[in-house]
């Protein structure tokens, strides 16, 4: 039975070589990340029911989508998977209690308050999802992780994140091979045994993983690793970076102020 995590996994890893974007060549990765985060925070921080603000941000994101030249179908595929993840939790909001009942059927009712919060969460969710997908579609993940260093993320944490991402494909693949082997031996047929077998598989994978970690460490040592990672010097900001950063801040503020006019 395919799992949505694995759909999600492949829809993200399959497209690593296809960066259609030009924008990540134009501005430094760190500025790209900072601008995305500013917009995400601005979207999330907007109080409920300020539709105009989200409309302005949405228009900005559409312009950005056009400029970045990402493959819209890839983006759609990702969003489709990701929206399944959140759909149930969003629906929970729709049927909440509140003032002004609009629709009622038994104990299920939709209220004005519920509808407002539902719409607001939906706006925030949709806009941030598109923005974050835009970031990961236009920037290779190792570059993204390195770019986090400017946000004062400790180098050790970035190194661990990079190391995890490096071995993700390998371990997922190894686990799928184990699963295939178990299915081939009819071990995953019974429901009661299934959990035991999966538990044993996970245990076996951990033993292999731990040994693999030690082997990686040994080979790192043999290449001269002394527990200090080469630090990347943050790139100098050029006028494009400053312009992008300044414009993003102005745009975020403009969206918030526009509500009052």
């Amino acid at each position, binding site marked *: 039975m395919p*799992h949505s995590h694995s759909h999600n996994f492949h829809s993200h890893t399959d497209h690593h070589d296809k960066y259609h974007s030009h924008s990540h060549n134009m501005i430094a990765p760190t500025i790209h990340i900072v601008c995305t985060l500013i917009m995400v925070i601005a979207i999330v*921080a907007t109080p409920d029911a300020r539709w105009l603000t989200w409309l302005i941000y949405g228009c900005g994101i559409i312009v950005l989508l056009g400029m970045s030249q990402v493959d819209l179908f890839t983006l759609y595929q990702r969003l489709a998977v990701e929206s399944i993840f959140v759909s149930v*939790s969003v629906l929970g909001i729709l049927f909440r209690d509140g003032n002004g009942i609009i629709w009622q059927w038994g104990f299920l009712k939709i209220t004005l308050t519920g509808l407002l919060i539902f719409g607001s969460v939906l706006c925030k969710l949709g806009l941030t999802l598109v923005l974050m997908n835009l970031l990961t579609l236009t920037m290779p993940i190792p570059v993204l992780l390195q770019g986090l260093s400017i946000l004062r993320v400790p180098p050790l944490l970035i190194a661990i994140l990079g190391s995890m991402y490096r071995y993700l494909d390998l371990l997922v693949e190894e686990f799928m091979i184990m699963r295939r082997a178990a299915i081939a031996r009819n071990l995953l047929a019974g429901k009661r045994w299934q959990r035991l077998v999966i538990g044993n598989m*996970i245990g076996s*994978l951990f033993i292999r993983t731990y040994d693999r*970690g030690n082997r990686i460490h040994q080979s790192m040592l043999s290449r001269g690793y002394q527990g200090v990672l080469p630090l990347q010097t943050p790139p100098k900001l050029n006028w494009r970076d400053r312009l992008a950063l300044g414009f993003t801040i102005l745009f975020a503020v403009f969206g918030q102020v526009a509500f009052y006019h």
Partner: protein
Amino acid sequence: MPLFPILNSQFLAMHIPDGFLSLPVLGVTWICAIGFISIALKQVESDYQDRAVPLMGVCGAFIFAAQMINFPIPGGTSGHLLGGTLAGILLGPWAGALVMSVVFMVQGFVFQDGGITALGANIFNMGLIGTFGGYYLFRTVRNLVGHELRGIIVGTAIASWFSVVVASAIAAIQLAISGTVPLLIGMTAMVGWHVMIGVGEALVTVSTVTFIWRSRPDLLYSSSKRINSDLSR
């Protein structure tokens, strides 16, 4: 036959997306998460020294891989491992919580599974409460029962069930404080559901830990053991 086919647990994961939490909740959970991670990083660096990067990295990938497989949950549906307590039992509270936080960061940044602004809350709920709390609950129960396999099994079962349920309860409380989902609905939906997920989590975690205890007991974290002593092995 699943009772509610659509209510498959993978769609009810505890990863809180962006837009669900209010600014005060986001702020408090971020501060807790950042403080917690910086202590965990220092602990792991001094415990594992130059092994920290490769070992924590592959263990993060391990948890990610382990979360990908579905298994039946009592009650008729299926779910997957969350792995917080498992990470704590295998790697210890600090390294386990750090590995879980790293998994959430990669899931949030790379796979958009869980929000970026809600990352602090997700680390707080499942890294701090789930893993750190789960490990100490495991240790307490194991010490009460005794150090034999039975103690490990009982401790693992209780800790992994509780960590899942408590983490979901705290997520429901955060959603209620944020004014997004009322406490009653949140509690019934989240906690009621995770009571069942917790059973699956406990069964699989027990089976995993028992397997490792039987085949490589030296790999289970023990607070008295010097982590670096097996370096020269």
